[in-house]
């Protein structure tokens, strides 16, 4: 069983934290800090497995991590999971994120935490692996997003419509298009606010 999934950056700031076992909020923050300490000390060319820190179960649990650019993806698992399998799972997760966000980077994770949670929920449920087929996951996520959009999404209907129009960049239409002798007069288009 997967006990926790943590994503944090090179300075230890959490970008996503999902716990599949009950910890109080203080403990959760402490676990994030402790895990960061353990993982950041590791050299680049050592193996990706670590014994878990004391707060998260000590040597019964393992930390399996992967370092991508500025982010650490850490899965804390117990002995019933295959270590190499989890490594592959992390890879699939990141590739799925990449597909959903188009060349995902840390900023995407920062600004769309809820979406990342949704994607994760399609892959891991209750600490167990649910789906590993990337295309399947992406399809489901797209369908759900569409459903959300049809209801007008997070921001609330009125604001959305307004901002949509506000952002519409009507190009400055030239009044006179001079192509040599031909002169076409373009009527004055009303401006929207």
């Amino acid at each position: 069983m997967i006990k926790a999934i943590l994503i944090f950056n090179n300075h230890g700031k959490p970008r996503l934290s999902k716990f599949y076992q009950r910890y109080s909020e203080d403990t959760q923050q402490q676990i994030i800090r402790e895990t960061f300490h353990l993982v950041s000390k590791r050299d680049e060319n050592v193996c990706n497995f670590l014994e878990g820190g004391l707060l998260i179960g000590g040597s019964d649990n393992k930390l399996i991590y992967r370092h991508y650019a500025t982010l650490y993806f850490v899965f804390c698992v117990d002995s019933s999971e295959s270590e190499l399998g989890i490594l592959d799972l992390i890879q699939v997760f990141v590739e799925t994120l990449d597909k959903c966000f188009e060349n995902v980077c840390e900023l995407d994770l920062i600004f769309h935490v809820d979406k990342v949670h949704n994607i994760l929920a399609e892959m891991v449920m209750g600490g167990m692996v649910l789906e590993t087929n990337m295309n399947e996951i992406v399809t489901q996520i797209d369908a759900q997003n569409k459903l959300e959009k049809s209801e007008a999404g997070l921001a609330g209907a009125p604001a959305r419509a307004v901002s949509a129009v506000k952002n519409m960049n009507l190009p400055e239409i030239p009044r006179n298009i001079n192509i040599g002798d031909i002169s076409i007069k373009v009527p004055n288009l009303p401006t929207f606010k």
Partner: protein
Amino acid sequence: MPAPIRLRELIRTIRTARTQAEEREMIQKECAAIRSSFREEDNTYRCRNVAKLLYMHMLGYPAHFGQLECLKLIASQKFTDKRIGYLGAMLLLDERQDVHLLMTNCIKNDLNHSTQYVQGLALCTLGCMGSSEMCRDLAGEVEKLLKTSNSYLRKKAALCAVHVIRKVPELMEMFLPATKNLLNEKNHGVLHTSVVLLTEMCERSPDMLAHFRKLVPQLVRILKNLIMSGYSPEHDVSGISDPFLQVRILRLLRILGRNDDDSSEAMNDILAQVATNTETSKNVGNAILYETVLTIMDIKSESGLRVLAINILGRFLLNNDKNIRYVALTSLLKTVQTDHNAVQRHRSTIVDCLKDLDVSIKRRAMELSFALVNGNNVRGMMKELLYFLDSCEPEFKADCASGIFLAAEKYAPSKRWHIDTIMRVLTTAGSYVRDDAVPNLIQLITNSVEMHAYTVQRLYKAILGDYSQQPLVQVASWCIGEYGDLLVSGQCEEEEPIQVTEDEVLDILESVLISNMSASVTRGYALTAIMKLSTRFTCTVNRIKKVVSIYGSSIDVELQQRAVEYNALFKKYDHMRPALLERMPVMEKVTTNGPTEIVQTNGETETAVLETKPPHSGLQPGSQANDLLDLLGGNDITPVIPTAPTSKPASAGGELLDLLGDLNLTGSPVSAPAPQISQPPFLLDGLSSQPLFNDIAAGIPSITAYNKNGLKIDFSFERSNTNPSVTVITIQASNSTELDMTDFVFQAAVPKTFQLQLLSPSSSVIPAFNSGTITQVIKVLNPQKQQLRMRIKLTYNHKGSAMQDLAEVNNFPPQSWQ
């Protein structure tokens, strides 16, 4: 009130904060805004607010006031609201809040919703944080969804069922009918989660395990299809078709095949196929191979397959990828007990891993190396391990040192080698050695009588330069105290003898006493050593007297007490001094695995000396054991002479077991160097021999093991309190014929799982007419608590002819071995 800012705005704002305090301020402001918005019961913007709350929660700020809002969101009709609401519930709520029960109704409704995504959300939340009450209420719905044809929902329902079973194991039966068709699915997602569900059920209940065994052929078929199917773009990961599913199935096969011959039989082919056909260039292939190897080792596979598995592990060890090497070392550690010889073949690679830079790999390699040490390779392995001890990180040194001591004790080819090894450990990792190593070492040194001169010389040289490593100094002081005369006389066969004068020796001991680096325990050792030298040295007695009297006013109470009492020895009891400070006799000890409890039977002294003897000095110098026996009023048991194993062929290798010497010697557990706590080991007031083992013998009936031709042998039993796998058998041999039996030799053999030690018999003549008996003590170690059986061989001379007989003893009472 203006519309609450969007999540993105909030994040942007927070990121502009330059200090923690600024961030806190912004968040507090926003929290206040959110709280008032909640109070206004604004439906439109609720989901936005909760989303922001969740973000702040992730950063570590309290967000509990949003819990009820999440519930309201879940109850809403809009999908967006539900999505955020359920996410909030998973992150903010748990079983400990009463609020969560309010969700139950919502989830129930959503489980029957028309939109599959809503149903999916409900299943997900239930599967993540459902409490036992919720699970009990909703299990029926989950079970219904398990049978649906919608694969999206089916796979979620399967994992939800796993969670329900974990919370409420009694409901497992309920899901049984639904599992019938699970494996017939084509959808890999459903297959995967079904296998997880089956695995969980099999792990929890042996009945389920038996029930699902019949699925083995189907699983094998699925696995086969996966391997043979060729390229399938849907499930392909680096060229292998759905490795996650393969790994899961292999794990389930492992659980099903354990301890079951038929299932293991059915799996052999497919396992061999996977093992040989999987491509190992990428991590994926290795993951599958690793799982295969674990499965092969766990089920009752044929030996060819096992050898294949270990070879795969050996290949892993040579892989460049650290992860692979790590998992290989971990699995070899698990299999080293059962397939010891096969793992031995890879010993050199494992030893090479000790030199790896990666800490995790080093630790695994160290543990595995200790498991691999045996009588044949002990010299080579020790060299490597000592080198490792030199160069490893401090966190390893303590474990490594203890491991080396244990291994050296078990497999030392010679005493000199043993002592050399221990000295080497003490000098390299002296400060990391565990405290119990010192008494062990002292006991070892006393036992190797012929090495005394060599040992003391080496120890002296070792502390000449550097006396900061406490364990080393303690052992050295003790030895110098005991064997100082050998040191000074310069007789040493093994090495070039060095010229040391008495003054030089006292110099070094005094500097230990004075040095700031010495712990108070060490000082105690040094002082006692100096005292002992007063009888061994001839010219420097006055100096010793001076030193001892100085410490009579030491601030350290321990030292002061010792010094005062030693002073008294010089003044009032000078006539007793030589007797008191005589050479220590050989000690017996109890070894168990791990921290040893030392029980010393110090040679005791006459009771009269009780008052002057510093009761806390653990190192009681004493007279021979025989004196004790006189005190005990004529026990005619001979003192224990540690018998070199005259034990018999079946006594499995070496001194794995040195048990406490003869039962009837009094000794109370005195830890040798601990000067503080021992009570005077002279519980002789009652003069009853206080048996060291609590006499549960009263409970275990004796048996007659052999009764033929007038020779009768009785066994009586005792079990140890401290070590329940030890049984001590005392045999009494009696002779009812008219002539004596002479040259009586008793030999015994036990099955391989036991270990046996025979102590010396009381005599070799059994007088006739039952007028006397021969007594002998046998110690049996029975770690696996198997039924005790023994074959005995008796040889003796009777009526002028040599007699010999073999017999088997099977009538051991159950209390003697259970």
